[in-house]
């Protein structure tokens, strides 16, 4: 593998969504899917680009799998349209589409060998037997399962099954590969490694991957862009950093990563152009970075601060300052690299603060029930209006 193709450093920045001249590979326009009175997918519009790794992230029942199955052709589109390479997919059966799917259960054919499974799609295309064998061998090398060609699915481990399913779905060189919870059936131990490999394979084949997952850390680790779905709606689309640093709503902020939310009232701006707010939990008020949208004085909003952007200090800090709260430590989780403190404020609000253990002496004086001060910078505080 070339150095510049290695995952991580040296990777070209991929941002076709930021370039209006790039034509999207898939255009999803106002699609809907209803099951009786329930709207599983509600007015979703989305552009997806070539060679992109896109994660559809959301809790179970949010409609992400339904949207994936609509792309594959297993669910009809009740309203709106899906265009792949400018071709309307309406009325195309699954076998007529240039998408392939990797199923959550893997759906390996139990009566066929590994080679038979991987070559299944190629056989349907009418390829000659030697061509199929050669392509199957290439794919087995790609997913690192050489030597398993004659095994039956029930003779494989979970990780091997997943690789066979991936190779089978890639065999026909689909324009888009749809992956439904690809890591769900794997041990937590091998998940991180498999995420890295999947990302590498996606990069090497240059195929657009759409991954459905409920695991936000998985989405963050793999995706070029994430689409957060809640209640059938696509509530936010952006890079992992966008979603983490600029969530559009309380619900998104809560779903992606850990968050501390303060309910607050807007007062106005200060001299530095920051927003000043009052909050019952914080006596001297809050100062937060200005959000993009307009804010009116008196408007109720939420101020969100990530646990790692807060500082916890032993004892009570004297002197009145904004973004400072006092409380006691109600729980401590020592995770090795981090220590996570649960802090209970005077008015009962519980905060989570994490501290990096970058020296042996860190965490001194921060025991259970210790009185502490929590503080954070204005630019770490996000104002959420929704």
């Amino acid at each position, binding site marked *: 593998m070339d150095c510049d193709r290695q995952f991580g450093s040296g990777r070209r920045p991929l941002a076709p969504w930021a370039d209006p001249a790039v034509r999207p590979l898939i255009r999803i326009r106002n699609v809907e899917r209803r099951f009786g009175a329930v709207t599983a997918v509600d007015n979703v519009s989305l552009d997806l680009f070539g060679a992109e790794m896109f994660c559809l992230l959301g809790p179970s029942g949010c409609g992400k799998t339904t949207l994936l199955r609509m792309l594959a052709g*297993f669910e009809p589109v009740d309203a709106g349209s899906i265009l792949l390479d400018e071709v309307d997919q309406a009325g195309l059966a*699954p*076998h007529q589409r240039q998408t392939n799917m990797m199923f959550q259960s893997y759906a390996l054919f*139990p009566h066929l060998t590994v080679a038979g499974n991987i070559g*299944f*799609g190629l056989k349907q295309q009418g390829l000659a037997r030697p061509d199929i064998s050669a392509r199957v061998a290439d794919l087995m090398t790609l997913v690192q399962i050489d030597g398993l060609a004659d095994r039956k699915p029930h003779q494989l481990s979970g990780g091997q099954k997943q690789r066979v399913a991936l190779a089978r779905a890639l*065999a026909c060189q689909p324009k888009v590969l749809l992956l439904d919870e690809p890591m769900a059936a794997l041990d937590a131990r091998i998940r991180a490694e498999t995420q890295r490999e999947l990302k590498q394979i996606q990069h090497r084949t240059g195929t657009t991957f759409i991954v459905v997952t409920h695991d936000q850390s998985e989405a963050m680790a793999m995706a070029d862009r994430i689409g957060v779905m809640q209640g059938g709606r696509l509530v936010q689309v952006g890079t992992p950093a966008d979603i983490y640093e600029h969530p559009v709503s309380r619900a998104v902020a809560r779903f992606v990563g850990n968050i501390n939310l303060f309910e607050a009232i807007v007062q106005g701006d200060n001299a530095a152009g920051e927003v000043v707010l009052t909050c019952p939990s914080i006596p001297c008020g809050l100062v937060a970075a200005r959000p993009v949208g307009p804010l009116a004085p008196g408007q109720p909003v939420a101020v969100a601060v990530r646990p790692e952007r807060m500082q916890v200090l032993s004892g009570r800090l004297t002197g009145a300052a904004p973004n400072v709260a006092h409380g006691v430590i109600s729980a401590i989780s020592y995770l090795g690299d981090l220590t996570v403190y649960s802090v209970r404020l005077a008015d009962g609000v519980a905060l989570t603060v994490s501290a990096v253990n970058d020296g042996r002496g860190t965490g001194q004086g921060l025991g259970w029930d210790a009185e502490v001060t929590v503080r954070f910078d204005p630019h770490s505080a996000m104002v959420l209006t929704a």
Partner: protein
Amino acid sequence: MRARPLSPRRWDVAVLTLLFSFLYVPILIVVVFSFNDSRLVTVWAGFSTRWYGSLLSNRPLLDAALISLQIGLLSALIATVLGTWAAIALTRLGPFRGRAVLGAMVYAPLVMPEIITGLSLLLLFVAIGLDRGFWTITLAHATFSMCFVTVLVQARLLTLDKSLEEAAQDLGCSPLAAFWQVTLPLISTSVAAGFLLALTLSLDDLVVASFVSGPGATTLPMRIYGQARLGVTPEINAICSVLIGLVTLALLAASLLTKRDFAARRER
């Protein structure tokens, strides 16, 4: 307590022994007396296979056996095709009009008294003016054994991961191709078991066949019953033993198929 006469375990053995004797001793008697070297059915006069020999020269009995076999194979084939088809409709088409009714109706013939099945089919054949004989028996047998096939295949389909068929379609199979290449190979043992069961039911049937048969179409059970009314001959014992052997083999094969299938699935 040494005085306890029978341990619970012994009770189990005793009850089971009684049960199985009740079921199988009469059958055993038939088989044993088929090797009896006497015209009198109940008097043992030494071992002989002469009745099996004379069976081969009993033209009417052999004809009836041949007809039974033809009807059995043909009706089992029809029942298997239709029954499998119905099972797929019930499990794979999703909700459609009349699905619930159809699903319940599949089970009705399983518990329907044969005499009613026979009578109603007879009335139907008379009403539509179908000449009674070989074909009416075949149709009648296919009708009632179809449900057994449906129930067997439906049970297998319900345990089959639907995403297997979706995966086949996703990889370029039309729905029909997906059925031939993925679904059918995976349900084949249940389909085969259904065929064998349908064959056994047809070979075994007397009541329905008596109702819907006509001149020239006498099945083996009908012939045996007819002869037995004139007195049981050792020849009948012999043909019955052959029939018992055939049916046992078919049922054994059917149960082995389902068991092997089950074991293979559990391994996964």
